[in-house]
């Protein structure tokens, strides 16, 4: 750590590789273009004119799971959709993260019935839960910032 002091303003910063990779990963997440229900409309609002998610390096929605790092489960997951959702998750390359957006994805929400999976964490491991029915765009952005913090602190070992 003495290097920066010695070199002064030569424009060199030293850090650990872990931190550098975490920083790079957290600021270039490509979410999957994948909406299920009401929350997908708020996800669209988050991307569109007023809230503009590209301020956080997230504007590039990919329609293919093979090209995306983040799955935002936006809406209720039915029992018929559950295997499809898991397939999509399995198709995503590592490292990958999941945000459960809204009450229905987090815990089943108001729909405690035969058709809805009571929380998407029964199917895929979830990193960040965003509350709300549906969450406001600000809430989703907050959730994404939480995820970015989490990615920055992830140890390198985890992903080999």
């Amino acid at each position, binding site marked *: 750590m003495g290097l920066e002091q010695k070199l002064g303003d030569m424009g060199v910063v030293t850090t650990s590789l872990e931190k550098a990779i975490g920083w790079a990963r957290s600021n270039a997440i490509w979410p999957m273009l994948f909406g299920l229900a009401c929350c997908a409309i708020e996800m669209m609002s988050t991307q569109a004119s007023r809230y503009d998610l590209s301020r956080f390096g997230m504007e590039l929605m990919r329609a293919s799971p093979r090209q995306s790092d983040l799955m935002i489960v936006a809406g209720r997951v039915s*029992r*018929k959709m559950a295997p499809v959702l*898991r397939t999509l998750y399995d198709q995503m390359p590592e490292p990958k993260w999941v945000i459960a957006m809204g009450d229905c994805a987090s815990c*089943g929400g108001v729909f*405690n*019935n*035969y*058709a809805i999976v*009571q*929380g998407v*964490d*029964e*199917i*895929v*491991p979830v990193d960040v839960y965003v509350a709300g029915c549906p969450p406001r765009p600000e809430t989703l952005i907050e959730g994404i910032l939480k995820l970015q913090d989490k990615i920055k602190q992830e140890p390198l070992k985890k992903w080999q």
Partner: protein
Amino acid sequence: MPVVDSSALDLTRITGNLGDAIAQVVTAHGETTLITTRERVIDVLAYLRDGEQFEMLTDETCVDYYPKEPRFAIVYQLNSLSRRLRVRVKVFLTEYDKSIPTATDIYPSANWAEREIYDLFGVIFEGHPDLRRIVLPAGYEGHPLLKEVPVTVEEVAFSFNRRRIDADKPYARE
């Protein structure tokens, strides 16, 4: 709330033309319901479409009247675009013989509605071109909108039982 005027519906003409096919006529809340039988429902629908210009089957659904008997009722909502009229046709079915002729030959719009009733209530539509489950996965067992199926599946979590519910929850792995 303005009540839709169904006075223009000539009930004497309908009952005169259909004879004993109409078991009962009920008028309530400004709506007319014709109650018919399973054997004659196709005649009634065909007559209402051709003779009374009810061109559109707006909706078809099923009601479970448990514990009353006959238990099920198939409800057809008909709409006449040219005459600005609505009428409802109703057929009661017993629990032990849940089958009824299909209305898809008269109204193509009944196709998916009947599949949905089959899916959720288990009513068999005889002669339906493609009777299979529509909203539930094919492997699903049972018919969830029957009254014997409980409304909720997961215990509601309070502070005293939260840990137990959480321990039983099947969390996914990587």
